[in-house]
């Protein structure tokens, strides 16, 4: 009897959480999902300043958005489906400031990820970046074109 009530409370809590939690995965509205991880501490890398640029025809970079990673190391709403058209993009993570704020002197000035997107229709992108003061690794998981 007690277990049954606890279970119902748990389900109600889950329902509330799934409404309120920031989206971790790319979806139709926000097709680019970024996750930054601190692999020294085994934790999300929070408050990392990230800039998203789009490559212009003349070779220059146009700043689209500037955001800090949240408590999950994510960047919800970094871009929207409308803004994220086919083209060349650059994610620039200010990793040096992240490590310096912890009193460390890192090797890299920043971690850049340059990629082309939506070449054959709208895809969903999940980009993970794993950091240490002397290394970084990035991986992309790209869906087939959707819609």
């Amino acid at each position: 009897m007690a277990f049954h009530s606890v279970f119902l409370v748990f389900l109600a809590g889950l329902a509330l959480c799934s409404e309120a939690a920031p989206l971790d995965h790319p979806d139709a509205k926000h097709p680019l999902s970024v996750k930054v991880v601190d692999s020294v501490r085994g934790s999300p890398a929070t408050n990392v300043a990230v800039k998203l640029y789009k490559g212009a025809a003349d070779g220059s970079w146009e700043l689209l958005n500037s955001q800090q990673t949240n408590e999950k190391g994510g960047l919800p709403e970094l871009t929207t489906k409308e803004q994220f058209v086919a083209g060349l993009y650059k994610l620039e993570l200010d990793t040096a400031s992240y490590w310096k704020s912890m009193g460390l002197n890192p090797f890299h000035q920043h971690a850049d990820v340059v990629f082309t997107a939506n070449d054959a229709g709208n895809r969903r992108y999940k980009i993970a970046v794993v950091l240490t003061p002397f290394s970084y690794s990035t991986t992309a998981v790209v869906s087939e074109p959707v819609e």
Partner: protein
Amino acid sequence: PSLPQADGTSEVGKGTLTTHVLNTATGLPAAGLSVRLARLQEPGLQWMELAHRHTDADGRCQPFLAQGQAKAGTYKLHFETAEYWQGLGHTSFYPFVEVVFIITDPAQKLHVPLLISPYSYTTYRGS
């Protein structure tokens, strides 16, 4: 050994910068990959290209900076990875990889390897 030592003296002296590119999809060195080194010049914050090399069969190149040539500052290694993957008949996610790093001690030997697969890469400060 990556460099010949014909006259008995090592060509890899103090303050050199080397790289090593490995194809993690095949577990083999990435040969014939174009790599450029540039230094951020002040004032004006312009990138000045210092060297252009191609990796050999072992995925390595001749050192990018001669002894005494390294100055403290911000440097960039630009790897033409998409061109490399295209040469093998693969598509890849990144048109190129740029690694932007800081040299604080010009006398220190620096090794900046790059591990690549079509949808990921890893870089670190080695020795």
